[in-house]
């Protein structure tokens, strides 16, 4: 099977999955008490039933559920995610404005956690009785058990308030001027703490898994063969063992993609990172249904794309996946 055909089949599956996500999200939101009319009347300092009804009619909230759902799906199919009553902006624009910040945070955290996790895992697997192994085990346990918002706040206090290495909040400093690289380094400086916070929990997972996976692989017959060929330790570990040990780690990383996104909500809140998480948080408070639905839709999209990429990465690492006939 060619890669193109696999991608095509996956895209078809993804479309069906997205439709299910849409229906489910919309139904759930509909079941929740309160709507935008309540919020508007609250901000007006209260309103009588007549005005409430008027608002509902003007936003189409008086229609039966099934009609509202149908309209919503038809709109999404045309890439129209609706209009945010709270922000007075089209939802898609709102999301696309925030999406890059979240993607930057999430992808940086994932990739850093993966690379550092695998390196730590390999180091501790090579010397299971060495001090480095205990250090990695401790780090992993700590990273996994500490709640992200707590880690985030601790890092903030230590590295922003006490030693002033990194900025406290936000994604860029509006006061600085300069070319691309000035802004690049500014964003990078802002990114460090949130990415470390978000990555810490996944670093723990990846380092433990790659350690276990590597130890298993190092004990296998083909590693003995590789040694019997007279290859150097470096070649045995990084060429023969690592490629085999990576498959479960990549699979886990793919599965964790959704968890990273939800973790991002908390981390963004702690660091005032202007991403989807902050937006989701604010729109839930404001009962801004179209925005919430839009964010959920985009999250589903990101997870599906992430899984597809994972699948392709697995194929690169392990030729047995998907087998050539």
């Amino acid at each position, binding site marked *: 099977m060619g890669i193109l055909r696999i991608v095509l089949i996956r895209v078809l599956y993804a479309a069906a999955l997205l439709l299910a996500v849409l229906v489910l999200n919309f139904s759930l939101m509909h079941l929740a008490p309160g709507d935008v009319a309540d919020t508007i009347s609250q901000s007006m300092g209260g309103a009588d039933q007549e005005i409430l009804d008027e608002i509902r009619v003007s936003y189409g909230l008086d229609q039966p559920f099934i009609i509202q759902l149908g309209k919503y799906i038809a709109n999404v199919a045309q890439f129209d995610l609706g209009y945010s009553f709270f922000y007075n902006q089209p939802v898609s624009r709102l999301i696309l404005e925030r999406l890059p910040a979240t993607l930057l945070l999430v992808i940086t955290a994932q990739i850093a956690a993966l690379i550092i996790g695998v390196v730590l895992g390999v180091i501790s697997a090579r010397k299971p009785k060495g001090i480095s192994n205990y250090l990695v085990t401790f780090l992993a346990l700590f990273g996994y058990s500490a709640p992200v918002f707590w880690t985030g706040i601790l890092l903030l206090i230590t590295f922003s308030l006490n030693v002033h290495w990194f900025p406290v909040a936000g994604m860029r400093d509006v006061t600085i001027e300069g070319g691309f690289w000035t802004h690049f380094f500014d964003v990078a400086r802002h990114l460090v703490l949130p990415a470390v916070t978000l990555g810490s929990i996944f670093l723990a997972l990846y380092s433990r898994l790659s350690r276990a996976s590597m130890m298993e692989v190092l004990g296998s017959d083909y590693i003995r063969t590789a040694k019997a*060929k007279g290859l150097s330790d470096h*070649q045995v570990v990084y060429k023969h063992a690592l490629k085999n040990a990576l498959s479960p780690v990549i699979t886990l990383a793919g599965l964790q993609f959704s968890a990273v996104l939800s973790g991002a909500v908390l981390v963004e809140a702690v660091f005032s990172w202007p991403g989807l998480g902050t937006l989701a948080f604010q729109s839930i408070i404001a009962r801004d249904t179209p925005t919430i639905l839009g964010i959920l839709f985009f999250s589903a999209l990101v997870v599906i794309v992430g899984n597809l990429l994972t699948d392709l990465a697995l194929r690169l690492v392990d*030729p047995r996946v998907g087998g050539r006939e």
Partner: protein
Amino acid sequence: MMRPLLDVQNLTIELTTRDGVAPVIDDLSFSLNAGETLSFVGESGCGKSMTALALMGLLPANVGRISSGHILFEGADLAQASDARLRKIRGNDISMIFQEPMTSLNPVLTIGEQIAEVLRAHQGLSRKAAWEQAIALLDAVRIPNPKGRAGDYPFQMSGGQRQRAMIAMALACAPKILIADEPTTALDVTVQAQIFDLLGDLRKQTGAAIILITHDMGAVAEMAERMIVMYAGRKAELGPVDQIIDHPRHPYTKGLIECVPHIQSELSSTRHDLVEVPGIVPSLREFGKDQCLFASRCRYLTEACLAGRPKPKEFANAQSADCWHAEEL
């Protein structure tokens, strides 16, 4: 007299287990001449594979170690050699084929690459030259369409083909010694015969000495000039294959030969069932005791057997047996 290619002297290997330290190879001496085939025979756990791993310097780290003795290869002691020196010898002067062709090849590297990397590591060939040489080697081990198959992964090959690829890999640098650790145990009987044929032919072409570790007495008779029978980490008997099969001087060898079934043998009053060697192999805790370790299973048992470890008895025909009763047999 010519110096043997490999001269193992009083080799003792200790294995650390939960119950303590056991000598899994206990005072083993043998030599291997250039171009000769020497076969190791014995039940599972008797130390055949341990000996092979020790020759390669691949004893399991932290568990097994050479506690005394020498492994002289072309006069230099491998038991004392550094890792770097051993790496230069492994895969180049001494190489090994393993029992399980299914798991002994790396599943995520192509066959061609796995052969070519040996050539690059030891002979400094370029990427392209090594690949072409790998294809030639696949052809030499009779894999059809070697050019196409070189790019295949192990999972795309059958068990027999994988073992052929393994042999190609082991022979890549024209080693002086090829250690074959039960090379056919995991294969079909028809494929077994092909692999032995192949090994025999390649030996004639390359002149490599072969250490053949096997359960298969038929293969020993066909392939090897000399054989060593191992029992519980010790040498039981050593000598030319024909003579040992014709007249074993150790009760264990005798038992092993008797239990080989023959397709044409008829059931008779003297042989009405498949023969077996009664009893079981002693546990690791028994290893190293100063007595004959085969005593509990032996029909020639006397008090002398329990009083001390038997000394090797040398016979005029180069046969030697570690048994108090060797002359009586």
